């Protein structure tokens, strides 16, 4: 539902049904609302059947990459005698994204249920939930919910009487964006500096503590009990666009719309409908200028592209961007695109882990160039320089942080070149004091 706004009739509420309902936070309240039925059913199935069910549902990773979840689970080695780990990525540090926070705040048991289900599927006895450091309320809610889950036998030596051991450990981040990257997260859990690791080896081969590991996003895991309970066919039927994108997706809409919030849409819902109907459209007298559809790391879309876009993995790619985490930043005609691009670049420059040369130096350098343009000291050659640097920062590093910094810069220049030129020519007053 469009929390904190009332649910819109065009939403498909699966995960967000109890947002705002504090009764759903407790174990008893969750069970009253039909909770833990999905887990109970899953524990009665064979692991293979469970993974097949999730595969058949078409569920894809909701953290950003959109990798098929069932397929990811099936990569875990069978009967290898090693401990397996499940890591739930609750770091949600992508600017513009705030869906996992609400899942943990209102329906912590939904996440525990999903974690326990996935842990069983991949034969893991321990699941780490890596919660973003700034999430104080979700942290305390989750802490209490895990305590209750142990007290009620959902977790522990004999999870729901199934004979399987499932433990959940909450791990709190310390505020680094990069720890949301799955391999950096594993390093962080191990107590090391949160630097992304080189792949291969992939986590399913050598992940956390060198053991086979699966990393799933909060929203992905929370969706799995619904798939088990209501069937893969039901989940797969939730599709208005490309059949490769199924189910519901929480879209965190922020920025210049009348009703920002979390909207749970059926995959394939037109973006126009999301922005203008569900979110109430632009503020009075304003028109749509740009949308960053998937968190700050994806290319910026123009108003035209956004208004004709189908909101699913393929639809957004068709418009030259990515669905990413579903953090949708909407900007109206009052937005200064140069400033916005600079603000994003500054974020990435601050968060670069400093391993790869292109990222460490490139994010900082591009930020300085954008700063100079905003100070009214840009020059024509800066376009070529920014595009050159962006090319060097794309596809050449261990993780995609530097690609993420380059994406809004390149799309910003391509689509809003005039705004950059206005700063260069002096037509627009400098927005920053000169950095030089």
């Amino acid at each position, binding site marked *: 539902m469009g929390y904190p706004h009332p649910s819109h009739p065009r939403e498909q509420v699966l995960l967000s049904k109890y947002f705002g309902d504090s009764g759903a936070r407790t174990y008893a309240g969750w069970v009253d609302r039909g909770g833990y039925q999905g887990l109970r059913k899953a524990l009665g199935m064979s692991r293979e059947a469970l993974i097949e069910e999730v595969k058949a549902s078409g569920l894809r990773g909701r953290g950003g990459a959109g990798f098929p979840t069932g397929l990811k689970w099936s990569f875990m080695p069978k009967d290898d005698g090693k401990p397996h780990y499940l890591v739930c990525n609750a770091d949600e540090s992508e600017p513009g994204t705030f869906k996992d926070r609400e899942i943990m705040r209102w329906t912590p048991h939904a996440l525990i249920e999903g974690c326990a289900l996935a842990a069983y599927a991949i034969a893991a006895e321990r699941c780490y939930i890596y919660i973003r450091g700034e999430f104080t309320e979700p942290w305390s809610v989750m802490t209490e919910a895990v305590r209750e889950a142990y007290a009620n036998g959902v977790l522990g030596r004999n999870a729901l009487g199934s004979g399987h051991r499932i433990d959940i450990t909450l791990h709190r981040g310390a505020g*680094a964006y990069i720890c949301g990257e799955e391999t950096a997260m594993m390093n962080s859990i191990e107590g090391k*500096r949160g630097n992304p690791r*080189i792949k291969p080896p992939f986590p399913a081969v050598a992940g956390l503590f060198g053991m086979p590991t699966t990393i799933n996003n909060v929203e992905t895991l929370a969706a799995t009990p619904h798939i088990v309970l209501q069937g893969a066919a039901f989940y797969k039927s939730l599709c208005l666009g490309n059949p490769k994108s199924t189910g519901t997706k929480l879209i965190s809409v922020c920025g210049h719309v009348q009703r920002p919030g979390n909207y749970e849409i059926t995959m394939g819902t037109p973006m126009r409908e999301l922005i203008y109907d569900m979110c109430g459209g632009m503020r009075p007298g304003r028109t749509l200028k740009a949308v960053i559809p998937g968190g700050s790391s994806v290319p910026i879309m123009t108003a035209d592209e956004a208004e004709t876009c189908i909101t699913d993995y393929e639809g957004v790619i068709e418009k030259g961007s990515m669905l990413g985490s579903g953090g949708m930043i909407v900007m109206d005609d009052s937005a200064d695109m140069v400033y916005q691009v600079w603000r994003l670049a500054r974020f990435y*420059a*601050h*968060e*670069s*882990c*400093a*391993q*790869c*040369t*292109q990222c*460490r*130096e*490139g*994010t*900082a*350098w591009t930020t*300085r160039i954008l700063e*100079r343009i905003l100070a009214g000291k840009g020059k024509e050659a800066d376009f070529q*320089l920014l595009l*050159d*640097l962006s*090319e*060097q920062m794309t*596809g*050449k*590093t*261990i993780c995609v942080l530097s690609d993420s910094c380059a994406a809004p810069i390149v799309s910003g220049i391509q689509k809003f070149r005039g705004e950059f030129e206005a700063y260069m020519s002096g037509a627009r007053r400098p927005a920053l004091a000169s950095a*030089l």
Partner: protein
Amino acid sequence: MADELVSVTIDGAAVSVPKGMTIIEAAKQAGILIPHYCYHPSLPSPAVCRMCLVEVEKAPKLMPACVTTVTDGQVVHVNSAVAKKAREGVLEFLLINHPLDCPICDQAGECELQDYVFQEGRAGTRYAEYAKRYNPVEEFGPDVLYVANRCILCTRCVRFMDDVAQTPVLNVSERGDRAFIGISPEQTLDHAWAGNVVDLCPVGSLISKDFLHKARAWDLDKAPSVCPGCTQGCNMSIETRDDVVVRLRPRPNLEVNRHFMCDYGRLDYRWMNRGDRIEAPLVRQAERHVAVDWDTALDTLGRLASGAGSVVILASGRASVESLGLVRRLAGAGPVTAAIRVPIGDEAPLAGIPDLALRKERVPNLHGAAMLGYGPEWGAALRAAAGAGLVILLDVALSEEEERTLAGAAGRIVVLGTAVSGIDRRADLVLPVTSMAEENGVYVNRDYRAQRYHQAKPAPGMARPAWWIAGEVLAGQGPDRDAPSTASEAFDLVAAAFDAFAGLRHADLGFSGRRVAAPAGASR
């Protein structure tokens, strides 16, 4: 079982290499050096510098050659336009915060950043408007300074301390372009092998205080040598400027010391530059020593050596196999006691490399000496010297008490020495010999690996290798005399006389030595 081989083509050169090898190693086999910074053959590869990105056909993007393994039929392009552009980009990024203070940087001339930028970097900068990152110089340890401004964050030093020294005192501090190499609070880089971080640093960021501003890299002459510090026998280079030794550095030998050398060995070179040297043969006449030419000196030595009765040889463990062997032969067939002095210190292992340590026995040729009949029983030999007909001292430093004991000895004393010492006054004959830095020779390390070392600087005055002196006397007089004129010929004479070296020649030893059979019952 032989390794499975795969065929790869690198820049048009086809090579067969073992399966599982990385592209960067396979390229070396094809004679192609892929530019790199963070990769080092003795360290784990983090693939962070992104300098070794190469184009691999059928791969969606450029691959880091240091961690990508070869596959059969793989086609790699190191010098394609795309790969070169990526490297040019990395170099540009590395240079924006690099101070370019090459004129005052110790690394200049042997700097990998300088080399690669010269090879394929951009001619000019596009980072003109901004100040470069600044951090002050930090003192990391007794001999290591960290010049943060020059650092390219390849993390070789961090990985050396983490994974090889296994004393993790260095780290990457801060993030983004503010990052620098940090040292843990209250810690100092005083590990016994810490000096290696200076060699590992591809730029002039970690520098040796001992070598600071001593010489420019291009003014140095380098001679392959073997560290005389202990029985490990680490391979090293003696680096001289104008015939003064200014630095010792490890020379790679995967069987002995990989790429490393301990600080004890590295910094113990000042004795090689001593000025108080014996420069001419001295013969005792009444109460004085008189400088003579070599003919006179050798005749005198020949007379003293023949019919001396019992002989005691007290030798330095730094003496070569050649010198020890021929001096031992010079002592003749009568009763001979031969010993070397073995100073003892603390053992300091390098944890991450098996069988590599600064050893307790601080001489390089303990095992070679043993194979030639020199024992370690110094005290007994010294007592025997008191009653011997002839005592030969081969470059040993004696304590005052030992000098007093020997001064009262009954027989003759011959000194083959480098530096002037107190016992010279009592000696009947004092002959100037070369130090290991001034001669060619062979040491045998604790694994019975015979390794050659080469002359790094000229001998002072009339000094000659001890093997030459002994060899000349042994050759005697006459037209058929066969005295050795090179260390190689001296070694042949030793091999002919001592079964332990039978059949071995200098040419067999190469630059990394060869293991010889350990004597029966020998232990390390």
